[in-house]
């Protein structure tokens, strides 16, 4: 049995034990959807980081830096700065005014059924797209990492899908949280170790390290061997649209992170807004350190392993594992591969629980059944069934698309929808008294549709025939989302919503009447 497989199985064993422990410990809706709201700041902070740093971060960014140098690192920056939006604007009011989902905050003063229906639709869209991207990437990756054991793409996808369903269905939010915590700790440990090894390779001399980055040799598309300064911008984002695309991506990150349903629901797992705030700060420390260290992962792979070798051995996503192999041999390669696997599992589990919660709480209970459970415990039961379906559908789609499908655009799409549909209505609902139901529905619809349409017309789908020249639609779709929300609002008046704004504002700012932690 290969080292990698043994480590994968070890991680699976630990997480299944966590799930068993969580299943015994928790009962009831508060426990299933929000881990009893009794996590501490550091626990939730690490879990937020674990929920957020996907395979796209760990493998993807290391790969982009290894292949395109500085431009890839610039990618890293936005992922941290985005948390300022979460910290300054969204986390605390959300915790004070909501219960289980993003739509709770909207339904607080707007007409609940339409905004919950739209909120659930947008949550499910973001979560499933993001999940399919993760699953396809994960399947390809796991079969590549476990090449020697002959595990196929299909087996890998089904395995990941079944595991995430098990975590969520049996362990709920508590198990999901601890899987994310374990993953985040492993990911940080692996990243720090790799960075130290990279520096050790250069005799712990930053000068030698950066000198090597200044002259990376590789074979370009024309087959010529070239030496390039990887610190110089412009290797990825070239004129005429490069800068615009980059700004557009930045907008999607800065405004989208605070609209990602699986991140938002994490703030319901702590006892109060103060803890939510502290957990964002914990998350920022971890996420920031991680993305700074991508310097060593990415440039390390470019200089020590070399672009040509990575391209010949699985492509740019394999940069970090191959770097580990080059520096410390097969056992370390297995360890880094297991971390990549853990990373994927923790993220898909987070996506599954946020999608299931939104369907059960927003759509099933509140839209279809007028806010009342027909039988005791129904909401949790529906969420568990939804998790099965969400997982099953993702497995099927991921298998149909196959390992070679280009799914990177799905991540861009998820962020674009979060930034263009979710964030405008959350912000306006919290801060604009005049805002109303029509505005929320229009905003969500415009943001959702414009993101989908613009991505469909982008180079990601239409290649050279693209009608819309940017891969990231944010620069157009975010203003459209806001515009839709504002115009929709101005078309109608809703005195109820305006009256209730006072109450929302007092609650959001003081925490008066906020959901409390349940004692176990």
């Amino acid at each position: 049995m290969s080292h990698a497989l043994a480590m994968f199985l070890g991680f699976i064993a630990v997480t299944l034990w966590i799930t068993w422990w969580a299943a015994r410990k928790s009962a009831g809706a508060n426990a299933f959807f929000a881990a009893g709201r009794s996590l501490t700041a550091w626990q939730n902070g690490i879990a937020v980081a674990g929920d957020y740093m996907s395979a796209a971060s760990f493998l993807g960014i290391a790969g982009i830096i290894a292949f395109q140098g500085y431009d890839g690192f610039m990618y890293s920056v936005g992922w941290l700065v985005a948390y300022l939006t979460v910290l300054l604007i969204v986390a605390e009011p959300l915790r004070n005014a909501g219960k289980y989902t993003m739509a709770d905050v909207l339904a607080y003063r707007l007409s609940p059924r339409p905004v919950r229906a739209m909120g659930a639709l947008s949550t499910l869209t973001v979560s499933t797209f993001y999940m399919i991207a993760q699953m396809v990437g994960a399947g390809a990756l796991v079969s590549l990492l476990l090449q020697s054991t002959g595990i196929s793409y299909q087996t890998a996808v089904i395995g990941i899908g079944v595991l995430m369903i098990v975590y969520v269905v049996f362990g709920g939010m508590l198990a999901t949280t601890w899987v994310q915590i374990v993953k985040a700790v492993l990911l940080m440990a692996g990243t720090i170790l790799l960075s130290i090894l990279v520096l050790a390779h250069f005799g712990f001399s930053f000068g030698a390290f950066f000198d090597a980055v200044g002259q990376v040799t590789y074979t370009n598309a024309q087959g010529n061997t070239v030496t390039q300064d990887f610190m110089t911008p412009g290797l990825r984002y070239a004129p005429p649209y490069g800068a615009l695309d980059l700004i557009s991506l930045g907008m999607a990150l800065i405004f989208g992170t605070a609209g990602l349903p699986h991140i938002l629901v994490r703030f319901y797992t702590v006892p109060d807004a103060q803890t939510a705030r502290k957990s964002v700060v914990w998350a920022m420390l971890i996420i920031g350190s991680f993305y700074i260290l991508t310097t060593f992962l990415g440039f390390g792979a470019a200089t020590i392993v070399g672009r040509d070798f990575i391209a010949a051995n699985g492509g740019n996503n394999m940069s970090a594992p191959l770097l580990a192999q080059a520096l410390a041999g097969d056992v370390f390669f297995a360890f880094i591969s297991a971390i990549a696997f853990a990373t994927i599992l923790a993220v898909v589990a987070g996506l599954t629980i946020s999608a299931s919660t939104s369907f059960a709480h927003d759509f099933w209970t509140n839209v279809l059944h007028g806010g009342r459970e027909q039988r005791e415990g129904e909401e949790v039961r529906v969420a568990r069934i939804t998790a099965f379906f969400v997982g099953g559908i993702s497995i099927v789609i991921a298998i149909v698309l196959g390992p070679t499908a280009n799914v990177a655009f799905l991540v861009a799409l998820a962020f674009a929808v979060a930034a263009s549909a979710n964030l405008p209505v959350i912000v306006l609902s919290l801060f604009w008294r005049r805002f109303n139901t029509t505005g929320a529905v229009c905003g969500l619809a415009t943001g959702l549709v414009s993101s989908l349409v613009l991505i469909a017309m982008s180079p990601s789908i239409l290649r050279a025939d693209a009608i819309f020249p940017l891969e990231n639609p944010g620069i157009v779709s975010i203003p459209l989302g806001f515009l839709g929300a504002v115009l929709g609002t101005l078309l109608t008046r809703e005195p109820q919503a305006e009256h209730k704004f006072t109450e929302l504002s007092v609650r959001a700012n003081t925490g008066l009447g906020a959901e409390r932690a349940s004692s176990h």
Partner: protein
Amino acid sequence: MSNDDDPTPLSGSATDVAPLGRSTPKPLHELTADEDRDVVDWQRLAATDEFKSLLKAKARFVVPATIVFIVYYFSLPLLVGYAPALMATKVFGVVNVAYLFALSQFLMAWLIAWAYVRAAARFDRMARAVVEKGTR
């Protein structure tokens, strides 16, 4: 909670938050927005000087901080995109302005977060004063 004459659903009506599926009366901490609405006179509370100064204090921090971080962040892709020569200027070795500017973004984010946490301790005190007034 439904009003039969008016087809418009009331915001914050019974659909607002699902009951948690228990047959006994809910404990206080599980009351929904609607059920404990009358515990607090929101309008009166919102009109107090304490609450108004809380909102003002928050806005005085959050608005400038948001503008600063957005301007600072977007100047990175803007400068990299439209002033590539400046950004490629080497500072020491091959380390250039672009890389240092990108690194400074991390510092900026952490500094603003730190400043916010400090300021928020004051907001918490002010919020407690409002709550005390409201529940007295």
